[in-house]
């Protein structure tokens, strides 16, 4: 039993290290608006985004549909994890970043580097119903 446990732990270390060595670097082409749009459409059933913005560092993004509902894409490994923002979601600017506090504790706050687009999206989130 002990040998088996050691083998498993060693195996985990080996495989995770290998995954990090082979695939750990950032992809050569960081995601863009298109990817945020696709991710929102794919992840949220019946949600049809009309516009999207991607973080300048490729980390995370926002989308909005025709009714003004805003969806957030949180960077999660090499994928996005999406949520439709509930009305009244707390949002603010901090050091030039947009901070969106989702109401789920384990999903947490998402920091977005949107550059000049930030104020417009901040307003959209505040107005979102």
């Amino acid at each position, binding site marked *: 039993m002990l040998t088996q446990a050691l083998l498993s732990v060693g195996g985990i270390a080996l495989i995770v290290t*290998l995954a990090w060595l*082979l*695939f750990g670097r950032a992809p050569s082409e960081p995601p863009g608006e298109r990817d945020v749009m696709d991710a929102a459409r794919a992840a949220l059933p019946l949600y049809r985004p009309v516009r999207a913005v991607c973080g300048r560092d490729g980390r995370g993004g926002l989308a909005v549909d025709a009714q003004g509902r805003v969806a957030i894409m949180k960077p999660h490994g090499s*994928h996005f*994890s999406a949520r439709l*923002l509930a009305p009244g979601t707390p949002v603010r600017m901090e050091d030039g970043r947009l901070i969106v506090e989702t109401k789920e504790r*384990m999903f947490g706050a998402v920091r977005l580097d949107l550059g000049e687009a930030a104020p417009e999206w901040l307003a959209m989130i505040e107005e979102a119903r």
Partner: protein
Amino acid sequence: MDLPDPVALAIPAFILLMAAEMAWIWRRGRTAGHYEWRDTLTSLLMGFGSTIAGLLFAGMLVGSALFVSQFRLVDLGWGWWVFLLCFLADDLAYYAFHRAAHRVRWFWASHVVHHSSQHYNLSTALRQTWTGTLSLSFVFSLPLFLVFDPAMVFFCSGVNLVYQFWIHTESVKTMPRWFEFIFNTPSHHRVHHATNPRCLDRNYAGMLIIWDRMFGTFEPEPANEPLRYGIVRNLGSFNPLWVAAHEWTGIAQDVWHAPDWRARWNYIAQPPGWSHDGSRLTSEEIRAGVAPNRAEARADRDTAPPLRPA
């Protein structure tokens, strides 16, 4: 009869095959997306934890099996054909369990762990629940102990689990047609892990896909629609404790806030995505593509994001 534990024997092969798959993907130049080390770490920790949980709660499983086998109806012996029958019966029991695991939120709360990765590779196969035995998911196999020796049943279900390892890959496109017709394959199981509406709650098979064909839950892999893996509402977390417990927490919250006892029961026994006020979508509704105006109406009166199914 003393039979080996197939899962324990297979661990070195699991490690070698994962390394081989990674090397294969890397050599083909697909450096992004297929393995993500944090995702893989979470999957492997879930697998390791599930073996520990299995040992901790083994008493429940073995005790129930021994209890039922007191009432054994026949003694079929240990012939090869008995093994074959036992494999078939166990695989059918697996189908029943797996279907319930997607259609009853109580069982889903355990099984969702296996679906919680947004990646699909061999390491995803090892992303296993810690709460399976505790949530009594073994009840579906109990009838088998009326016919077969407990050791034979445990051996067969171990082999079934080991078989399911290799089908968690995008590196095998399709197998020969006769094989795809009878057995569960990477192609069939990719559909099972995909969240594309048409793929939801399809291909429950363990080893044999024939059960899905027989009971109307089969869906072939779409030819020109890329598959997206995971759950409809992805976690956005690699924390193993949260992966293990998130749906149980969700049930507890819903039961706590439910307006009456009927709703409390339904939050446990109805399919994932059921809600007392219709504010969420079940996989059936997503499959059917609920009319957009209905979804808008829901979003208006909902305080939480309206889309929270399996």
